[in-house]
């Protein structure tokens, strides 16, 4: 793929608080905010940043509202969020945990196709309606139900990524893998503590590394992951604007408040087939390489990174798949602090899925909002990178629905 035929920008991002266990205001038996509350709050946050909220199109990312909330036909909520979208083209995209990335790509494509100059993109998920044991059932829909669910673990995706963690440990060493996963957890929480919207913002555990080192208990959970290796059950919404130069001007967005999309690629894997190599995120690798190629940069030019660390091991596997570390080298990269805020590749600065939380359908959008804040100097956990580019990977299921996007500063 060549370069983009038009300039495309992201701006006016907003994340709601990521709600769930860990937030002091969360109590499983007390009434919780409705999904409409999250949608309105997020849209409000986006709309207050633009002077003329006249969009050509709206896109909603969500995974399983049909099961969690018994609510389908989600495009209909876009005009509720942004009244100007009434009478416009709206759609919902679904690619499990990769829904947000799909929405960003779909918006970019509408602009590239000259079908829209400005697209309002939102993502959300509300899951705390169910207990974790039933949430696991719903999220298992990101795998191949007829082929995998019956034999799968009660906690299906922890089971899937536990298998990957086990394979990784077998190949590259159990101790190093466990230590790096613990370090990943520690880094996620330390970053989340700087982000008031993160689910783990108030996490005050004195010894994060020790928690991360907790030996997995197959009898209680899964064989190769402990609970700290996992993102939690989360509720929340995110939204932003995707616009052409013309669209941004009409909305009243200034270039310095936006970032520019320079490369992106979606990749799909056959959901009915297991991974060829459990230690490799093959499709993540493909998407990342293509996005970098389109952007015309090498991995070394990326200054901030947003990875889909639904589990600590997934974050590490993504580092390798994207070429930031050699095979088996992510352990060292994490343990040596290269992904920390003061490292050479600050990663998941708002906490990532392990620290910020994982409101599934919102996550891909949330990642772009966080890149936007980092690269425009407005992030709660701001780093000063000498590099102009940022990159994110949105992943659905077991490395199946993957979208990689590369962005850069405009100022």
């Amino acid at each position, binding site marked *: 793929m060549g370069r983009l035929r038009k300039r495309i920008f992201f701006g006016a991002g907003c994340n709601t608080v990521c709600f769930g266990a860990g937030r002091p205001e969360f109590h499983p038996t007390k009434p919780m905010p409705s999904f409409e509350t999250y949608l309105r709050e997020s849209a409000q946050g986006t709309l207050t940043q633009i002077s003329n909220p006249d969009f050509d199109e709206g896109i909603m990312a969500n995974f399983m509202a049909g099961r969690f909330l018994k609510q389908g036909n989600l495009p209909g909520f876009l005009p509720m969020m942004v009244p100007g979208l009434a009478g416009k083209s709206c759609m919902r995209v679904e690619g499990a945990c990769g829904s947000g990335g799909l929405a960003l790509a779909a918006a970019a494509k509408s602009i590239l196709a000259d079908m829209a100059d400005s697209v309002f993109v939102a993502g959300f998920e509300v899951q705390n309606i169910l207990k974790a044991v*039933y949430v696991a059932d719903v999220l298992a829909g990101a795998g191949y139900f007829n082929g995998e669910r*019956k034999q799968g673990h009660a906690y299906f995706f922890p089971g899937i990524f536990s298998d990957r963690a086990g394979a990784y440990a077998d190949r590259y060493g159990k101790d190093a893998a466990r230590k790096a996963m613990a370090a990943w957890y520690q880094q996620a929480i330390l970053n989340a503590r700087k982000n008031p919207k993160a689910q783990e913002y108030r996490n005050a555990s004195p010894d994060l590394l020790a928690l991360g080192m907790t030996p997995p208990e197959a009898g209680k959970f899964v064989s190769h992951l402990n609970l700290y290796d996992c993102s939690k059950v989360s509720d929340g919404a995110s939204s932003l604007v995707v616009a052409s130069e013309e669209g941004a001007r009409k909305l009243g967005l200034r270039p310095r408040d936006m970032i520019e999309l320079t490369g992106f690629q979606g990749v799909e894997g056959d959901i009915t087939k297991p991974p060829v190599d459990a230690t490799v995120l093959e499709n993540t690798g493909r998407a990342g390489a293509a996005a970098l190629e389109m952007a015309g940069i090498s991995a070394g030019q990326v200054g901030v990174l947003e990875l889909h660390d639904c589990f600590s091991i997934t974050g590490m596997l993504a580092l390798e798949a994207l070429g930031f570390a050699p095979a088996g080298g992510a352990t060292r990269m994490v343990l040596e602090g290269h992904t920390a805020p003061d490292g050479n590749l600050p990663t998941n600065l708002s906490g990532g899925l392990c620290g910020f939380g994982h409101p599934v359908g919102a996550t891909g959008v949330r990642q772009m909002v966080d890149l936007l804040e980092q690269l425009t100097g407005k992030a709660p956990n701001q780093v000063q990178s000498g590099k102009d580019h940022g990159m994110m990977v949105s992943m659905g299921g077991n490395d199946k629905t993957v979208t990689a996007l590369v962005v850069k500063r405009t100022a």
Partner: protein
Amino acid sequence: MAKAEWEERMRAVAVLGAAGKMGSGIAWVVLKAMADLDGRGNGVPGSGQFDLVLIDSRSDAAPAFKRLREYLRGQLLKAAEKSIGKLREWAQDRPDLIENGEIIQAYVDGAMSILRCESDPAGAKGARLVFEAVFENLELKRDLYARLKGLCAPDTVFLSNTSSIPISLLDRSVGLDGRILGFHFYNPPAVQKLVEMISASQTRPETIALGRELGKVFGKIIVPSNDMAGFIGNGHFIRELLFAFTKYRELRALHGDAEALVLVNRATQDFLIRPMGVFQLLDYVGLDVFSMILEVMRKHALPEAAGDALFADADLDAWLAAGVRGGQLGSGEQQDGLFRYELNKIAGVMDPASLASGKGITYVTLAGTDLFGKAVDSLGPLPAGHSPWSAMAKDPNKQAKLAGYLDALKRAPGLGARLGREFLDHSHTVGEALVRTGVAASAGDVSKVLMNGFFHLHGPADWTP
């Protein structure tokens, strides 16, 4: 392979008094074990090979059974959610059960199909194991066993939840031929790990062995006790309460009646680091139940055991006569007794003086005396190293900290510390007496009962007077 005897017997079980507080808990423990056996063998419970009959003859049985079914269904659901991994393994040959939710629902529905509720003890016919948890009254139990003996197969094994009535009395008077065992669950049976197992001289060895197996199946800690009225748990608890009444009377002159109740209660909670004080525990048990046990012990216990001959208390009798009750509703809600409760927390203390003056039961709050919470001025400071029970129970360094605390208590000034020492001295004496008279096999067994059945953090052996 032939099934073990316990496994065979667990296919046909009856629980008598099943709608009561203890009975419903025992029904849950038994149902869970049966459902798991059925599920392990047949994928999910509900194969039709298991039968649990829950019997209660109370007059309002219908609403009580409805509550019991709701309670059991709720317990099953929680248990199934918690053990979903195991349930998935059992159900692996059931292609129709795929999701956690489907498997959990099948478990709950299947388990509920094991049980039936009956109001006539005749429903126990066919049971090979009978758990009995009717009211603590010798005549009532004797009549019931006489009827069951005529109904059930001759090799039926009976497990009585009595907390005080000698098993030998029941066995001999009905002629159960050594097939009855005291199997004393602690309240609430769903949570408490302790079962006091009481055998008499004529109890058959195979009955005792069966009791031990069942303890394992139920995941309980079995502590054997000799057949001496009150056994270990009540042998200690009843004597401690009687001691508490004497302390209450000592403090009355100086502190007034109501405050004296509070002081003894708070001293035994705070200075002994227990989950609740002695008088709150009396309310928890219920003054009426306590009085029944006292009566049994008066008739059948060895009075000389701890030098406390009477097994009676005039104040207790007066309060009972005036209608002070305590005890809990089936929902677990604590009823007013010596204290008034709001949401199961102490909110007022009965004023014995107003009771004596014929004004009926009145509850008061006392200025300067926190009923349940921070400091009680008159008790003085807590000794060094003190932590509240909930914090101490969770402390990984509990043993060393408790030893340090008890050491500090030995020398600490103030009324609370003095009362604490007196209660611990008394407890030590009772513990020694229980061993000396053969009720408990060892001081360790007394401690085991107090720590597992009463949630004490230390036993009589940890304190030297």
